[in-house]
């Protein structure tokens, strides 16, 4: 360090310390600034916008349609069917991964950089910091889903077309209604996606390791998906976080049924509340010995 010559600074001496009460908004702004500065967040969002395009083109060009997935048999020449095929695929492990990339890292990265001791010694409480990070992760998940859905729907309709859709009861659905139902189907995956966001937050807080926070929710999601495919365990299947990802089927039958959608909402709510509750308690009580 070298001595510097600075202009004379005049200063008043206030009588007491300035009382400043930073709100949740300020903490949220800081979290968003940190997220904006990270390449991986932009990469994920950009991927969500751009990746569906080549996928749509490739599937449209297939001579033999992927019959093993719902709507696969119509996907090569029906835009709505193709959108739903991509939706079915995305819900298997892609959505948990994309949300975990941010949510699984948002707490653990502070451990990685040793910055807990920096941020927890300002004027913002641990609770506020927890909610700022949670809201950031949740907001990212919403944005991600909106971009992915919009990109898939638009590129499918533009590249393949908007022919009437054959529904899950064999019925023919006109293009206008099909668009609404397809959009609603994508929207219905928000609840389980946010459930995975909360699960990733729990794993991030508990493990203090970004790799675990990102990979573990994906692995758990895949295991839950496999378990859900087994027969004879309906009691467990209805409690899994991956089951609500398929609740949109009821929107495309005739008549429509919404039982799984309602049940799914409750299950996701329970997973989210329990995960966040446990994460909050761990975060608040933790002794920061490193950094």
């Amino acid at each position: 360090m070298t001595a510097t010559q600075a202009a004379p600074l005049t200063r008043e001496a206030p009588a007491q310390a300035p009382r400043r009460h930073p709100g949740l908004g300020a903490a949220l702004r800081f979290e968003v600034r940190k997220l904006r500065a990270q390449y991986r967040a932009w990469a994920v969002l950009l991927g969500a916008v751009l990746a569906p395009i080549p996928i749509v083109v490739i599937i449209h060009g297939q001579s033999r349609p992927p019959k093993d997935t719902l709507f696969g048999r119509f996907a090569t020449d029906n835009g709505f069917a193709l959108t739903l095929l991509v939706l079915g695929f995305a819900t298997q492990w892609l959505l948990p991964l994309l949300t975990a990339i941010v949510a699984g890292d948002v707490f653990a990265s502070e451990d990685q950089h040793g910055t807990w001791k920096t941020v927890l010694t300002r004027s913002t409480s641990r609770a506020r910091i927890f909610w700022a990070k949670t809201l950031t992760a949740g907001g990212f998940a919403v944005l991600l889903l909106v971009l992915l859905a919009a990109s898939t729907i638009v590129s499918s309709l533009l590249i393949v077309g908007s022919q009437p859709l054959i529904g899950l009861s064999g019925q023919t659905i006109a293009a206008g209604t099909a668009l609404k139902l397809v959009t609603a189907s994508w929207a219905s995956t928000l609840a389980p996606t946010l459930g995975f966001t909360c699960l990733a937050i729990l794993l991030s807080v508990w493990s203090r390791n970004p790799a675990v926070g990102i990979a573990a929710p994906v692995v758990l999601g895949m295991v839950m998906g496999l378990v859900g495919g087994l027969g004879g365990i309906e009691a467990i299947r209805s409690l899994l976080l991956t089951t609500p990802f398929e609740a949109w089927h009821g929107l495309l039958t005739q008549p429509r049924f919404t039982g799984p959608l309602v049940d799914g909402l409750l299950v996701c709510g329970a997973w989210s509340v329990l995960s966040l509750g446990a994460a909050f308690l761990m975060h608040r009580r933790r002794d920061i010995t490193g950094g």
Partner: protein
Amino acid sequence: MRRTILVLVVALAAILGLGTAVIAVGGGASNVTRARLEKSLPTVFANTYVNQAHILGRHVTARSLHAKAMCDKHGPDVADVGPGGDWVCLMSWTDPQVPMPPEGYGKFELNVHSNDCFTAGGPSKLTGFLTITDTRGKEVTNPLFEFDGCFDPGADNTPTGVFFPSLFAVTSTTLTRDAKGGTSLKVNCGTGAHGCAGTVVASDGNVNLGSMPYRLKEESTGTLRLPARLPPGTKEVSFEVRPTTGAGPSGPATIPVERP
């Protein structure tokens, strides 16, 4: 890191252990039930049938088909509950252009998944093959050849009361003389209600070779022994089925005798 992996492994093991316990205790509870499939399949089939008709330039309504189905999972000894690739549904419908076979139904095979969706395929004689020709002469995929459907897991589970008789069939293609000069006939009884029972009368054109009673459960095979010895020089034997329970083939089955 090791602690993390250990805890995750323990958590996974706990989930799997819990699952096994639930299976053991719950006895295979599932939303996939016979009643729900019997209500869902005819609806999906009828709508898909209408699509096919539209492609072929015909006009059919779903209601006019009066489709009804009886479903069974893997034979009489397995409970008709739970997902699997071994669901068989017997379905009948009314279409003047596509008459039902003598037993009154077509046999469809369903692969039902735990997410309450299924893929179904039926007899090509009734549904058509992989492709059909549309009104403009183009070969297009036949929607009825293989189709998907999903049903409401919360739908009414009361039985539909639809029953179709099992179909009894002779499956031997040749008859071999055994050491004692007699012979036996392989038969099977297909999916349906109540199994198959009746009598098979064998004759050699002129000579009555005896009658063999049979009683088989649905989805089973059996062997019937000719009561009498085959006269030497018999070239073929004709079997006439007289069913008392279940359906039988429309005419007698003539089976050649293997030359020694």
